[in-house]
């Protein structure tokens, strides 16, 4: 959810009850005022009526008057002893032709020793209309407020969040491996200034960590070289020693073997480090089909021995501009991978289209998400002769040339696809 819609939602949630309570209070207060006015009017009418009744004789014969307000005069035998009674009632209105609320004022009056009971009835219809009107006004106010709030906050947020969006944009394009510094747009908002400051600090720190880690990997893999060469050569010399019995010979053989494995591992790591340092900048056009065919020659014997059936389908003959070494490493690692993790009497299916290279082979199901195997040292099995760098190298090379690589396993069918 966007921050804007969230804040709007909160605004709305807090404004609505205020408006509702306010509306309700306005209704109560208004009704109180109107009621009060109504009663005052009724009492004023009572006064006026008594005055007029006393003054104009001909009025005295009129016992019933219906001119908006109904006035009914009834002569009674005895004193009802009523001061003034106010009450609400519902009566049929012959003009509006429906039942309507009325308020009536009842009082008794003595005139010429006779007692009269007078009832003044007043229609409450205007009150109802007024209250309805007030309700409508409140509703219109709510709608107007909400709409303008939405518009205003949208406009404000667009302006206010610009530096934030710029920062996000810069971060998205930032790559720690590239030496270029990151720049954020200047902003006057303190919070964003702080954000940019913290980000730059953090990036500087991660850059430093990254560089020192890279240097460590490079130095370690370089420095490992000499002791490794010594171990290897001493082990090889020991093997020539005729006094060793079979058991010792095998032990030395194992030392030798382990040193070799370490040396291959080092080669892989050096390769990756060099790629990180962009040391493979020289490029040349390379025909992919030709590269695959010539690389496969090295594996002919192996493929034959493992009884793997190889199918090559070149639907197209794309030429890519790549570094020679990297292209070779990419293709040989792909082939190596397909052979190594194949089944006995399995198959390899190489499909080359204009914009993609697909290599399929049957194999053991994976215990993990195939994409994870692009990480260094992620091995499918405890096969000790596997360096765990093959797919990492493949992935790295694809990254360098912005090629999309995907690794999927479908019912024991492994499929690596590279889109160039």
């Amino acid at each position, binding site marked *: 959810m966007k921050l804007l819609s969230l804040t709007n939602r909160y605004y709305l949630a807090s404004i609505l009850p205020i408006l509702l309570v306010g509306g309700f209070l306005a209704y109560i207060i208004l009704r109180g005022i109107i009621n009060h006015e109504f009663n005052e009017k009724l009492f004023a009418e009572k006064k006026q009526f008594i005055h007029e009744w006393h003054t104009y004789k001909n009025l005295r014969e009129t016992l019933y008057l219906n001119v908006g307000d109904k006035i009914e005069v009834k002569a009674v035998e005895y004193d009802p002893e009523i001061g003034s009674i106010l009450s609400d009632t519902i009566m049929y209105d012959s003009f509006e032709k429906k039942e309507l609320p009325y308020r009536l004022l009842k009082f008794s009056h003595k005139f010429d020793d006779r007692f009269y009971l007078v009832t003044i009835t007043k229609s409450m219809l205007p009150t109802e209309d007024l209250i309805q009107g007030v309700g409508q006004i409140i509703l219109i106010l709510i709608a107007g407020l909400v709409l303008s709030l939405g518009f205003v906050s949208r406009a404000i947020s667009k302006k206010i969040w610009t530096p934030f969006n710029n920062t996000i944009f810069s971060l998205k394009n930032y790559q720690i491996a590239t030496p270029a510094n990151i720049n954020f747009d200047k902003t006057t908002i303190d919070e964003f200034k702080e954000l940019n400051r913290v980000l730059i600090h953090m990036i500087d720190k991660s850059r430093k960590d990254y560089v020192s880690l890279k240097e460590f990997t490079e130095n370690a893999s370089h420095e490992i070289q000499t002791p490794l*060469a010594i171990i290897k050569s001493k082990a090889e010399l020991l*093997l020539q020693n005729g006094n060793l019995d*079979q058991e010792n010979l095998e032990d030395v*053989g194992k030392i*030798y073997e382990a040193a070799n494995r370490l040396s291959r591992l080092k080669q892989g790591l050096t390769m990756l480090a060099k790629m990180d340092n962009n040391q493979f900048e020289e490029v040349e056009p390379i025909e992919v089909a030709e590269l695959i065919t010539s690389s496969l020659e090295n594996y002919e014997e192996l493929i034959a*021995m*493992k009884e793997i059936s190889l199918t090559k389908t070149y639907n197209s003959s794309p030429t890519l501009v790549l570094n020679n070494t990297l292209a070779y490493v990419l293709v040989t690692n792909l082939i*190596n991978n397909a*052979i190594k993790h194949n089944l006995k009497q399995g198959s390899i299916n190489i499909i080359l289209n204009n914009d993609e290279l697909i290599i399929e082979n049957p194999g053991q199901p994976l215990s993990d998400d195939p994409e994870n195997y692009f990480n260094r040292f992620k091995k499918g099995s405890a096969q000790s*002769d596997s360096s765990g760098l093959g797919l990492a190298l493949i992935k790295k090379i694809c990254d360098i040339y912005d090629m999309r690589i995907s690794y999927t396993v479908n019912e024991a069918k492994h499929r690596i696809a590279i889109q160039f």
Partner: protein
Amino acid sequence: MNILIVEDEHDLAESIIKYLSQEGYHCEWANSFREASEKIHLHTYDCILVDINLPDGSGIKVIERLKRVKSESGIIIISARDSVEDKIIGLEIGADDYLTKPFHLSELNARVKSLIRRRNFDGNNEILFKEITILPQERLVTIHGEPIKLTKKEYDLLLYFVSNPNRVITKESIAEHLWGDHMDMADSFDFIYAHLKNLRKKILEKKGGDYIQTIYGVGYKFTRF
């Protein structure tokens, strides 16, 4: 045969000297650029092994000096740098071969032998091993004078064995010798076995001796008995 080893790492130099001495070479060691410069002016060597990274200068300069005095010595660079560019630079200034550290001593030995052979006889020499004769120029092998037909890999394998007679040759070094370092180790061992079986059969068919001895868990040995 005199060999100069220019290598600052004492233990490694010692291993190389031991291995090559057993082959009958006379080895000398220089542990710095200065010492190497002195030695190449005082003596002549059939082969010089040069490490590029020396504490007081580059091995490249040693090679340049050798070329300036029109030295006839064969030059093999032994370097920790494994990039194609480094190899090209090394070979361009006149080195004959380039071996990346860490290497197999048997591989180094085979390269030294091949280099000396090429230098001394312009490649027209024969390699004799009892009844087996190898003519490297023609890539031809005869047994009791009769030529046998070998595949490229079988030929390389035989030459590698003959260059390292009576040595325990590890399967790793054979694999790298035959396929370079891009081949998967575990797979290549099976191959070596298959190729050896064929090679042995072909030699035996021509009444040659069975010289290939398996050292279980380690590799093979080509023995003269």
